[in-house]
């Protein structure tokens, strides 16, 4: 499902990623851990083409990306199959919660409005927020906003979900509620890659842990091996 081969990227003379290779099968949950500034987010953003890379290759959901700028058509195809959740939620503030979640089905999947709304409502229900469908994002708590962002990504039925430090902007209580949502998703067999600082979460949800330090993979293996019991 995911295959990264010899990925390298530099900003100017500073290497950000050095010869990164990893694989994940369908249904796997990969946690990427490591100190700040180690290239975790950059690696994740290479997986859906938000960043370009200098060398190597990325294969994800049966799409293959090469170094340098990606063709727009390829990017759109990759992103339809790969959902992403950001640290800062990035909900669209001018739309209601329901509109946030139904925008992708309507515009990207080109579903009729009624069908897009139904699909969005189902995803909101899944993250426990159907009651907030008509609210504006700004009126929700941080944890609720992040769950809406998860529903928004799920509404396009992605084959892979990417999470970029999904709980770092949240206090512990809210962080726990978002984590429960992600763990439930993992249990349901969703393939995903999660960049996180939270080792407890990685132990609970991950099938595989990758440690990235200064742009290189230093260790990789089952959670118990990397993070301890």
């Amino acid at each position, binding site marked *: 499902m995911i295959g990264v081969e010899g990925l390298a990227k530099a900003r100017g003379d500073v290497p950000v990623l050095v010869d990164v290779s990893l694989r994940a099968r369908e249904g796997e949950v990969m946690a990427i851990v490591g100190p700040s500034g180690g290239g975790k987010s950059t690696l994740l953003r290479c997986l*859906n083409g*938000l960043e370009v890379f200098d060398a190597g290759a990325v294969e994800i959901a049966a799409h293959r990306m090469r170094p340098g700028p990606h063709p*727009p058509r390829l*990017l*759109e*195809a990759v*992103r*339809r199959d790969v*959902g*992403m959740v*950001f640290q*800062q939620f*990035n*909900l*669209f*503030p*001018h739309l209601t919660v329901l509109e946030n979640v139904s*925008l*992708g089905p309507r*515009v*990207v999947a080109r579903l009729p409005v009624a069908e897009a709304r139904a699909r969005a409502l189902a995803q909101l229900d899944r993250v426990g927020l159907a009651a907030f469908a008509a609210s*504006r994002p*700004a009126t929700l708590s941080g944890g609720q906003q992040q769950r809406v*962002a998860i529903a*928004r*990504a799920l509404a*396009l039925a992605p084959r892979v979900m990417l999470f970029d430090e999904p709980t770092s902007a949240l206090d512990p209580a809210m962080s726990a509620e978002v984590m429960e949502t992600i763990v439930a998703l993992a249990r349901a067999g969703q393939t995903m890659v999660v960049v996180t600082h939270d080792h407890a979460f990685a132990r609970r949800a991950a099938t595989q842990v990758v440690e990235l330090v200064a742009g290189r993979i230093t260790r990789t293996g089952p959670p118990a091996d990397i993070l301890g019991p």
Partner: protein
Amino acid sequence: MSGMKPRRRKTLGRLVATAAVAILLGPASAAELDAVVARGELVWAADQEGGGPHVFLDPDAPGRLTGFEVELAELLAAELGVKARFQQGQWDRLPLLLGRSVDCVINGVELLPERQRDYHCSRPYYAYGLQLIARRESPLDTVEKLANSGPAGRWRVGVLTGSAAEIFLRSRPELAVDVIGYDGTIDSLEQVQSRVLDAALMDDCIFNFYADRFAALRAVGRPLGGGYYTVLTARDTPRLSAAIDEGLGKLIADGRLKSLYDRWDLAGRQQILALRDAAEIPTAGRRTVGRLVVETLPMLLSAAGMTVLLACLAFPLAVALGLGIAVGRLYGPPWLRPAITAFVEVVRGTPLMLQLYAIFFLLPKVGLALPALVAAVAGLALNYSAYESEIYRAGFKAVPTGQFEAALALGMTKWQALRHVIVPQAVRLVMPPVTNDFIAMFKDTSVCSVITVVELTKRYSVLALSTGRIVELAVVTAILYLAMSWPLALLSRRFEARQEKTP
């Protein structure tokens, strides 16, 4: 004159300033004859933008003022035993300068009943005729033909706004003539030559002066009417006024005025005969302010309607175009961006008046003659689109990059992300400055008067000139502008309040 109103930009600001100056200073006491003599200078006012043959810049000696009125002022000053000093002013505001820094106005000012009421008008110094001008091959080859429509319907005749020519034509509704007012002295000649107009009506001396420049045009028949130019002085300087009258009398009697006019090819002998026989004209009575408002308000209101129409047609176009420009500049193909940037800088860096002028007066020369209203809307929309695009550009940049990334991460194309996520947010952000520009456009519509569109400021100007009630009408006009912009200001504040509520 009927002749010297320059092109200019008139704004609410100027109206208010005119009123404020007049109210704050109150009636000023003008310098009497002895003060002029003690000073050693007679300060006379004119507008050098008005053109020849009255007062204009000498093309052969750049920076030097020349014209028959320059020489007349020097002769009159010499009669008083002093030197003449020129003071530049806006033609239709020249009388306001009397008693402040200026002793007299010598600038083709026609002797009219209203002027006799408000100022001291000297004995006439020049007799003008109103001459009809048409293209040489025009079917309009006698003035009698104005009584009936021509082959293409009613005759379109251009005049200088507020001039005696305009008053003459507008007071004769029986003629099959549509009168179009221009701000510049020879604008109407340009438009006759470009076939936008059938004819122009103006002081004969002006056409004679510029005839060589318009070889395709000719004078049609004899002058339709005429009148006299007079020297204006303040009412409270009777001895100065008398001295100027006396000086003029001497210049007429001893032949110096005749030789001056002969030197300027102004038919000296005929002038002297006409001036000798100049008949008295009546003085107008004074209307109360209430009556003035009742009489002028309908005209001011309909002109305000034109102001609203111009702004309401042009602004949505400007906003749409500005949005397109901003998107093109930020997200368009790289080869297009320099062209868009150049457009924005050229439009922002040149005055709206020049742009309107180019659209209205230059396009007909390449075969594209737009009606005045269309040209005005197009000019305003183009001009404002450049400003709106810069506001939008700032708006786009104020939308966090995470929004764009989130839209792209959903699989949207760049254009889908713009349309559904970025533009709606940017539009909300820029609502207050855009509303602000809408208010500004209401006032900028006044510039359209240079291309014959009669909107509120233009109508004010004409009425102020014909009634002499500059201050009272300025206040009424300013109130009308406020009535238009106030609701927009409230709207703008509501947008801002709403924005503070939804971060």
